[in-house]
């Protein structure tokens, strides 16, 4: 009897331990840059085939589109960037030691957005977005985690 109880307790422990462990990475999908409009930072909104069974197409497109818009904002040739340039010139670029550039500010915003998306949408689906700046703004990496929901429990 005690053995049985012990086995039950032990299996419960290991089961909960398995829950706590991070899921295993199955594969990675790379969303490429979209160069059709030139060298501006823009990612392809085409839904990758690997994600078809994992998430909603609309959601994915929305995420990528938002990212594209943010990058467009960062690279916008407007009054803001011009003023920044002038100020930098006048101070012999020493302003860069104390001030953050416009692009960097938007990058921070993007990082926050990606974090938010991961927490709210992608992690529950077993996916993880990686900030493209880590890859030199060449690809958006989406990590697909192993789905152990089938057959577990």
């Amino acid at each position, binding site marked *: 009897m005690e053995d049985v109880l012990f086995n039950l307790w032990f299996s419960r422990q290991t089961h909960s331990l398995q829950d706590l462990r991070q899921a295993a990475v199955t*594969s*990675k999908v790379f969303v490429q840059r979209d160069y059709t409009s030139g060298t501006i930072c823009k990612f392809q909104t085409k839904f990758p085939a690997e994600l078809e069974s994992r998430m909603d197409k609309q959601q994915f497109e929305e995420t990528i589109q938002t990212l594209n818009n943010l990058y467009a904002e960062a690279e916008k040739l407007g009054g803001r960037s011009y003023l920044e340039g002038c100020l930098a010139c006048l101070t012999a670029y020493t302003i860069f030691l104390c001030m953050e*550039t416009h692009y960097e500010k938007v990058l921070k915003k993007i990082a926050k957005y990606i974090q938010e998306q991961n927490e709210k949408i992608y992690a529950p689906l077993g996916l993880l977005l990686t900030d493209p700046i880590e890859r030199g703004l060449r690809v958006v990496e989406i990590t697909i985690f192993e789905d152990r929901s089938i057959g577990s429990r």
Partner: protein
Amino acid sequence: MPVGLSVDGALGYPSPSRPFRPSRYVPVSAATTLLVGTTTLFLCFTCPWLSERFSSSIPLYNVVIFLFTLANFCMATFMDPGIFPRAEEDEDKEDDFRAPLYKTVEVRGIQVRMKWCSTCRFYRPPRCSHCSVCDNCVEEFDHHCPWVNNCIGRRNYRYFFLFLLSLTTHIMDVFGFSLLYILHHTKQLDQVDSVVTMAVMCVSGLFFVPVVGLTGFHIFLVARGRTTNEQVTGKFRGGVNPFTHGCLKNIAYVLCGSQAPRYLGRLRKPHSVQVQPPFLRPPLSEAQLEAKVLDNGIQQSKSSLEIMESQSTDADPPPPPKPEHRYPGLPHTQNEECSLLTEAPATPSLYKYRPAYSSPGKNHTASTHSSKMSRGNSMTESPSVPVTTGQPSYRSDPSLSSRGGAGCRGGGEGGRAGSGGLGGASAFGGRSYPSFTDTLLQSAAASCSSSLRSAHTAHNALGPLISEGTTSTSYKSLANQTRNGSLSYESLLTPSESPEFESAAHDTAPGAPPILGYTSPFLSAQQREGSLQACPAPLRPSPNRAFLRPTSSPPSRAPPLSPRARSLGSPPPGPAPGHTPLGKSLSYGGGVELQHRPSRSGGGTSMPNSTIKQNVANHNTHSHKPAGGVKKVTGVGGTTYGISV
């Protein structure tokens, strides 16, 4: 956040083990010494008199200009030009053998080639180039400037340009004011001040001409929206620059654009999000359920199912899918290169070499489908994988490779051979793809491997090879055009086997002149040259060389090969399940050079590059006809661009 100040390599990652070369620092030291030294002398010896005689604002003005010049010089020297970090291993799961050297992408209607960088392990974005001095890929690479000992790229081009402008101004000022001093001291030229001022004048006068020349050149480049690299390689000489936005906008972009971020040396935040099962799943749609039912145990995506159905109604049979050369254990992920090419917009210039297909769209879906199919097949065709391992990827040609690689960088040549060898006979409509292609690939792989391995089986192998005409030549072109340079000759047959192969060619096609092209993959360079001398007969026109009509022979780089290339271009006797004649001609025209190219890890632009470009130009110019809506624009010494109309 401070700007990305980093001495090249200082942050360690991109090129951590470069040997210390003091000679690299000579020009920059000289430039710094000259600039600072000359200006200091000027300020100390000439300016006191000027401030007394005229106004004290003169030295002040000169100091301001000098500081501005120095600031821009420092920024140009120390700022990260836009170095791309090396791609990590998981971005590039494909075997190097199979991956095409080039990928084509459409930029504002113009086809631009992206080359694989073997050092940095990714396909270089447009306008990116690998600097051999710094051993890094730099975004919007302009040039490597020895005077600042740094690459000039996207991030620091503005500072470089402003440095040139301010230096020109500064030199003019210094020279002008020194001249003024001398003209007022013609009677006191033996004084120290005068001597020093004359020396300053000489130095500034000496450097005035080259600096002004360089400044003028860069003003021209900025106005035209080109980089130095693009200008000197003649990329847009005959054509359209897809990166220009008009003169004013180009200037605005350079001077007023926001400072681009650096990619190196960024703190990588670890993901704070925990990803744990159970995971949510989106509800399956009707079509997805259908797809699952049709599944023969092989993964098929919904979109590929649709493509299958549309293909079955096509008049022209699509090519059999290329086998995806994946390790059997790996899942079918879409890696970096695949996802680029599965994008919907078809690039018309890619399809002009496939006469069987009337529309680029169909072709694209065909290849996409085939690639998807092959991805699905990879699990079942694992036995054939070792067979094809030693053989280079078929997708050698830049534009065609991207077409072929729609979704798959990794198609093995077994599938290619199969498509070439049996493409004409393939009838995909309505049949179950997996089994068909499986047998196809197996047989093709078998035929290819046998042809490579033993001469006596060359008869059998050559049968299908000759009739379809792609396989053997494709091997050669594959070898040359894949990312892995080491494949160029090692994987090819030894010379001893080639004579047998040639005779086999004679035997199997009696009455027909020997097909030199078929011998080429199996010969070393010397053998090939020898065989060319020995067998100058024109190649029998093969259906698969349909669109090779070089209007001009390939450049003098490979004179012995030109007759072959020309004969390649003879018109086909009939419709062909067109296959990469481009690849073949590339292999002929620039065969020798092509092999060497991949082995170079990619320093900037070089002559062999232009070999390929020239060859591309050759058949690009003439093969433009079939596909409607593509205007071919060729640079004289550089790449060609196809503008989709």
